[in-house]
């Protein structure tokens, strides 16, 4: 879908280690988003970006940071992973303009042990 890929697809990491998830798009879209999905909570916004070096916090940003040094890449970093960050992480791009018709990546399943 719309040339959006996430890596890695699966990762197991230990508590306290830093982890970086990558979202890559090939179509030069301006708006990119990171969500986490947990049972009973639906999709919750972690961080978003409106362009290179233009990022902001979502509703569950504590413990996460992001960077966007190139239009095509949006990186999500867990500074010191905790078990509560075990989740499925989805990157999304807005292909029709801001907040319209998100295209999601295939997700990264992260387990913190």
């Amino acid at each position, binding site marked *: 879908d719309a040339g959006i890929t996430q890596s890695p697809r699966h990762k197991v990491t230990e508590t306290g280690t830093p982890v970086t998830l990558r979202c890559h798009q090939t179509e030069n879209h301006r708006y990119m988003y990171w969500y986490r999905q947990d049972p009973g909570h639906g999709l919750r916004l972690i961080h978003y970006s409106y362009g290179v070096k233009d990022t902001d916090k979502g509703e569950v940003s504590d413990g996460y940071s992001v960077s966007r040094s190139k239009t095509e890449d949006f990186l999500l970093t867990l500074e010191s992973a905790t078990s509560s960050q075990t989740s499925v992480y989805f990157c999304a791009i807005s292909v029709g303009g801001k907040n319209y018709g*998100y295209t999601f*990546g295939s997700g990264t399943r992260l387990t913190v042990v």
Partner: protein
Amino acid sequence: GQQVMQIPQYQHVQEGEDFTTYCNSSTTLSNIQWYKQRPGGHPVFLIQLVKSGEVKKQKRLTFQFGEAKKNSSLHITATQTTDVGTYFCAGTHNAGNMLTFGGGTRLMVKP
């Protein structure tokens, strides 16, 4: 924060039966979007509604946006096994604000 509530959480239906999921907000929404996520997959955008009272159809799926722009529904006529998945609504409370997703309704269809 502003929330979008979705009911029911789960729905089991027999193939051929109809299905409806409802989405409600305590405040007016600028727009409402619907997504479908197959088991093990990622959410896929289905449609956006913007106007008060708007109704849109996609084959067996009918989407409605309430007159007060505080609620929405997705109705599937004569469900099929291919309809299995979780259906999410998502809305923005002010133009330009972030999308807020509902908790989703998981649809299971018995053949």
